[in-house]
């Protein structure tokens, strides 16, 4: 179980005020909130890239970096490495150099078969983002942190990637923290939606999602959308 209970200030200015939630093993937690509400900061704290007040534990212990896969909001690929070599990055650090076939498989999974030898400068924004996702998936992390990974994709590719991610997650039951601006995406993918609002931001509510069917136009889907939307909108703050 991943337990989060943190506050964060930058230069004395509070950004996050005691944000609290937890994720069971296999939970897919989607974090929504307006721009600047500290979503990226929250993931960075979980990854150990940012200091914080409070506690973040995984199975009761401090998180080991090696158990984390991070997909950044910007792709952060090494420009001198090909797509395949970028995917190998995390594997090399774990001494799994021989796993080229694994890297190839993950690249295929994100729809980049045939692009193994392309450098980032030869890929589109969406393709680069997918290499970033493949890099995180390749190391088979226990916790997968994803910061708006599909923001730069077109509608069609995005839905395809959501489908893929959902299948991967169904298969491997990783614990995922997934930041998104899209309520639709959050409900489609998540088992939980965490809503951050206010300045400094707090957890406004956590909605458990259990869809009978993953169909975006179904009544239950629209009902969830309304609930998330209500939590996000300031009118309901009376």
């Amino acid at each position, binding site marked *: 179980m991943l337990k989060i209970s943190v506050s964060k200030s930058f230069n004395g200015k509070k950004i996050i005020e005691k944000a609290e939630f937890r994720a069971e093993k296999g939970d897919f937690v989607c974090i929504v909130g307006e721009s600047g509400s500290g979503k990226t900061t929250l993931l960075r704290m979980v990854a150990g*890239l940012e200091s914080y007040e409070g506690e973040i534990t995984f199975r009761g212990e401090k998180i080991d970096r090696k158990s984390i896969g991070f997909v950044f909001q910007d792709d952060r690929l*090494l420009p001198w490495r090909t797509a395949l070599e970028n995917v190998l990055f995390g594997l*090399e650090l774990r001494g799994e150099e021989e796993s080229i076939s694994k890297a190839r498989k993950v690249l295929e999974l994100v729809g980049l078969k045939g692009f193994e030898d392309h450098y980032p400068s030869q890929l589109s924004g969406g393709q680069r983002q997918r290499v970033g996702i493949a890099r995180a998936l390749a190391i088979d992390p226990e916790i997968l942190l994803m910061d708006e990974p599909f923001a730069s994709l077109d509608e069609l590719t995005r839905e395809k990637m959501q489908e893929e991610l959902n299948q991967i997650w169904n298969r491997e039951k990783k614990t995922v923290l997934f930041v998104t601006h899209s309520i639709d995406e959050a409900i489609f993918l998540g088992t939980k939606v965490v809503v951050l609002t206010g300045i400094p931001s707090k957890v406004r509510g956590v909605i458990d999602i259990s869809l009978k069917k993953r169909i975006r136009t179904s009544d239950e889907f629209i009902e969830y959308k309304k609930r998330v939307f209500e939590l996000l909108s300031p009118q309901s703050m009376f």
Partner: protein
Amino acid sequence: MRLLKVYGLITLIVVWYLSSFIIFLPAPHSVALKFALLLFNAEPVLGKSLLEHSISSIIRVLSGCLIAFLIAIPLGIISGWSEKLDDFFSAIIEVFRPVPPLAWIPLAYIIFAGFYSPVQIAQVFIVFIGAFFPCLLSVREFAKSVDRGLIEMAKAFGADDEDILEKVIVPSSLPGILSGVRIGLGVGWMTIVAAEMLASSGTGLGYFIMVMYEVGGRTEEIITGIIAIGIIGYLMNEIVLRVEKKLLRWR
């Protein structure tokens, strides 16, 4: 593009030819003949061919540059990485950087006077000075501008300092290393020719030109030497550019 370069060269030769009627300058064809003759055959005063002089100069430059690069590249990466070390080194660098390498020549000949083959050692030292600073500055600049986001990415994937150095900082400084090598070789090459003019080293293109001047203004030989210097400088630059192109395909 190619064609324009050819036109440029032709223009140069025409202008040279015309000037040879007006000022004291040998015509292109007689220099060309001299060049062809001296390339492999010994020139009588010094008893060495142009090729032999070239090789001596090249060896001095490569030794001086090699030592310079071996120190400048790691130092540039370290001071690009750590601000504290950069502060420590920057005062030293800033003082010596503006001093033209040629200003070191007299001092070098004195310092190394007691050594075995002092002239050669002094010359290698001067090349070292000439190549060191441009290389250091180029590497440092690139090492400094390493994308912090990439370092962070590496950390998030569990990289330790050594991994970050090897897998992020060095490759991302590679363009700076290569251009540092290229600039360093260029400056080193200019420096050696000047250094050879100031002391009798027996061989070397700079020495050859100086002696040809001293024995009575042999302009054909002097221009032959100048052309050799130009060609070798051009080739060194071109070779490193090719390597750059190959290693930096990702750009």
